Structures are given as C-alpha cells and as structure tokens.
C-alpha cells in the first residue's frame, strides 16, 4: 500500500511537469496552429540560466523568478524577431525553424555550460516538508509550485481583460483586430508566457533528472502525449492530460513490478513506461480523436 502511494505521489510530481510543458505547447498551438518542437530545449536553456544565476550567488527563488522573467522576454523576442517574418510562410518552413531553434538551444547550452551532467539543488527543506514514506519534499514542492503557476495562468486568462484579448486573438485573429486587439503583440505575449511556463517546468524537474542539455527530450515526448490526450486545443485538457500521463506511467510500472513479484514473470517494468504511455495515447486517440477533453465547438449555421 505504501509503495502504491509512493508511486502515485511521484506520478503526480512528474505529471505536474508534463502538465506545464504540455500547457506551453498548447498555448502556442491554439494561437498559431503550430507545435513548437523547441519548447523543451527552450525550457532547458532557461534552467541553465537559473543555474548560472545561482552560481553567481543568487538564492534559489531569486534565480527562479529572474530565470522565468528572462525566459518570458526570450519567448517574446523569438516570436518578434524569428517568427514574425514567417507569418505567411508555409507550415514546413515553420517546422524547420522550430527544429533549428531546438538545435540552436541545445548546442548553445552545450557550448556555454558544457555537456557534463550537473547536479541541481532542490529548494524544498528536507526535514519537515512532505509526508514521510509517501511523498518526498521535492515531489510535494513540485506539485505545489506548478499548481500555483497553473492557477495564476487560469486566473489571468479567465478573468483579466488582457487574458480575454489573448483568447480572442487566438480564436479569431482577424475579428480580434476589428475590436482593436493588437494581435501581433498577443502572439508575442503567448510565446513569452509559454517560455515562462516551460522554464518553471525545467527548473522544477532539474533536481530529479539532473541538469544537462538533453534533459528535456523525454519530457517533451510525454508533454506531447499529455497535450494529445487532453485535446491539443484545450489548455485545461493539457494540464489534466499531464497528470494522467504522469500517474499512468508509474502505475504501469508498479503493476508490472507487482506481477513480477507474485508470479515471477517479467512483463512490464520501468523500462517500458514510455512505450506503454504512448500505446495508451494511440488507444485514446483512436477512440476519441479530439482527445478526452477536446471540445466539439458548438456552431449554428
């Protein structure tokens, strides 16, 4: 039982990370119809920035906030400078740009900070945080931080005029212009927010997977899976999808271990986590192509 709860807790912690990256993907997808393949590498780069700030003497949380702000500016900058000239470019050109961005982030991080794996600290106090035997201090901290960030985003998009303008610009850019929304800036802001949320995910996961330029590769795959399960155009769905994938992969491994313990036959274990997660994605998409929460838009003609 205790092992089950442990697996569940670590699933939730991983899920929180996937949820953040998935949300970053969806935020850009809903406003541009493109999946940013470089999202993970951008988050990795942000994590290195926070590491550098700590190496220069900042405390963890100061480095965290500065890195998130810098990432926001980087996101805005990338949209304005690199993607703006490509507004009318064909999809393939943009895909190539995303892949280029991925390679650039990856090799720049390697060039600046080397490819050697670095340890990354956890800001959460060891002793009196978490529930002994069930959820460790870092896991609980990750869940709390991501939930706070996700709630802030929800409030921003749901209740502020700027959030409303961003939603309107994503839904129908031309009509948004007709009510005076500066759509180009909304896109840039969306990129900034996506980069910032990605940075939160990167900084939170670095203590678990260690800091290296390839740390986000697997996580981006999980995030794609989460976004697809939740419905690629649905931010709330992406978040729930993230938690589902996180818990599911651990449960699969846990069940596999249990079966092995009881029967002595090895069927699945930790090594097959990703495979099983992706099989489930295919299964969900076959039955519900729009994803679990993909809304069929109500439309009267």
């Amino acid at each position, binding site marked *: 039982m205790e092992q089950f709860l442990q697996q569940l807790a670590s699933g939730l912690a991983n899920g929180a990370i996937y949820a953040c990256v998935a949300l970053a993907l969806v935020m850009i997808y809903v406003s541009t119809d493109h999946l940013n393949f470089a999202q993970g590498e951008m988050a990795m780069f942000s994590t290195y920035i926070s590491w550098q700030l700590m190496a220069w003497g900042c405390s963890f949380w100061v480095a965290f906030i500065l890195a998130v702000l810098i990432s926001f500016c980087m996101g805005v900058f990338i949209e304005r400078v690199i993607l703006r000239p490509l507004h009318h470019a064909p999809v393939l050109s943009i895909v190539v740009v995303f892949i280029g961005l991925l390679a650039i982030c990856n090799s720049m991080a390697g060039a600046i900070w080397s490819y050697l794996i670095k340890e990354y600290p956890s800001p959460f106090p060891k002793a009196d945080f978490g529930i002994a035997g069930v959820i460790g201090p870092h896991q609980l901290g990750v869940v709390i931080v991501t939930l706070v960030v996700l709630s802030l985003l929800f409030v921003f998009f749901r209740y502020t*005029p*700027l959030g*409303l*303008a961003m*939603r*309107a610009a994503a*839904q*129908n850019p*031309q*009509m*948004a*212009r*007709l*009510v*005076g*929304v*500066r*759509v180009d800036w909304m896109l840039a802001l969306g990129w900034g927010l996506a980069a910032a949320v990605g940075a939160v995910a990167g900084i939170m996961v670095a203590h678990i997977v260690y800091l290296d330029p390839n740390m986000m590769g697997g996580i981006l795959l999980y995030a794609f899976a989460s976004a697809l399960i939740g419905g690629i155009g649905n931010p709330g769905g992406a978040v729930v999808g993230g938690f589902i994938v996180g818990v599911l992969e651990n449960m699969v491994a846990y069940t596999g271990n249990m079966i092995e313990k009881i029967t002595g036959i090895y069927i699945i274990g930790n090594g097959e986590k990703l495979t099983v997660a992706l099989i489930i994605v295919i299964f969900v998409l076959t039955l519900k192509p729009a994803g679990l929460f993909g809304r069929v*838009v*109500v*439309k*009267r003609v």
Partner: protein
Amino acid sequence: MPALLEVKGLKAFYGQTQALYDVGFDIPEGGITTLLGANGAGKTTTLRAICNMVRTDGTVRFGGEDITRQATEEIVRRRIAHVPEGRGTFTSLTVDENLRIAAYTRKNKAEVDAERERVFGYFPRLKERIQQQAGTLSGGEQQMLAIARALMLKPRLMLLDEPSFGLAPLIVVEIFRILRRINEEEKVSILLVEQNAALALDLASHAYVLETGKVVMHGPAAVVKNDENIRKSYLGY
C-alpha cells in the same frame, strides 16, 4: 461641414486580382449612408479596404486624418467599428466576454459596466443570454451581439456589412429599427452595405451604387430610389 470619412481613388487587390477601381465617396458626420450593388460589385471589399484588411491603394481620411496605411487595430482604435459580414462574433466566448473584449483597453471597470448596460438597452435579449456561449445564439441574436460589440467601441463611424444576411424578415426589421435608434441617440454615423436595397434606401439618407468596383451613381437616397435603372436592377419593380 467636412465629411467624417473621405475616400478617394480607392483601389483594392486580392493577390493579383483587382477588386476595386477608383472608388470615391464622402460620409457626412451623423448620417446614414448606404452602399448598394450586385454580388461581386465590391461592397464588402470597400469596407475591408477602409479598415486596411486587404491590399489597398488610394486615400482614406477619417476626421481629417489619413488612415490609409494604418493597421486594422489602430484604425479601429480611432473609433471606426466594423461589423463584418456573417455572424461576426467570437463563437466560443460568452456574450459578456464578446462585449468586454471591445472595451479591453479601457481601465475603468465601472465605466465599462455602465457602457454594457446602455448597450443592453438596445438589445435586451442579449442581457438574458449574458453567460451563454455566443455560438449557441440564434442567427439574429448573433448579429445583434456583433452590433452591440461594435457599440462597445464607442464608435464615431460604424461600418455594417449585410446585417440582414440570412435572417428572418421580422428580425431584419427589428435590427434596422435599432440601427436607426443608434444613429439618432448615439450620434453614430453609419455606412451600410446591403443586398436588400429597398430596406437600405429607407434607412439611409444618402446612397452610392457600386458596379464592378466603381461608383456608378450616387445621390440622396430618395433620388436614387426613384431612378429608373436602380428600380429595375435593385428594387425589382
């Protein structure tokens, strides 16, 4: 009195295709002007060209200021409200959000709320549906919402593209009655594009007739209405 909107030598292009050739007209402050013409004459394109939504050439002056090269959103912020053709609403946003989006640059929330209440005065039906998703409204209600949203911009000039399109005759009459009230009570000048020439000529004080991207006739609505060619081509009697 100088015109509120002056359009001179307006040309518009979709890619290589030219849709407008030398369109020119003046819209007086406070009046209702209508733009008539058959399908493909360039009525919608003219409205889109005013808001710089297509590639244009020529000059558009609004309140004396040249707005030809301004971005669409900047033109709108100078208080030209464009109600596009078809159901011009954000279908996945609620009625309330559709109205608030038009006021998002204004900081004073109490003022925006008051504004919204005033707009509901014209469209009481929308108030009943305030939290409903715009996509679930009837066609007439969506058209009303589009006009209400345009009003939230506090426009000096409202561009209306076929507000009667696809609506039941009774609803059309209701909408046109509201448009007249808006013109009189809010002092909003209106440029109306309509297929339904009889209705448009009743509402408007001045009319321009477009044919294949050119103005072929203009004058007071009463005069245009009695012109024999217009009667035969557009009014059908």
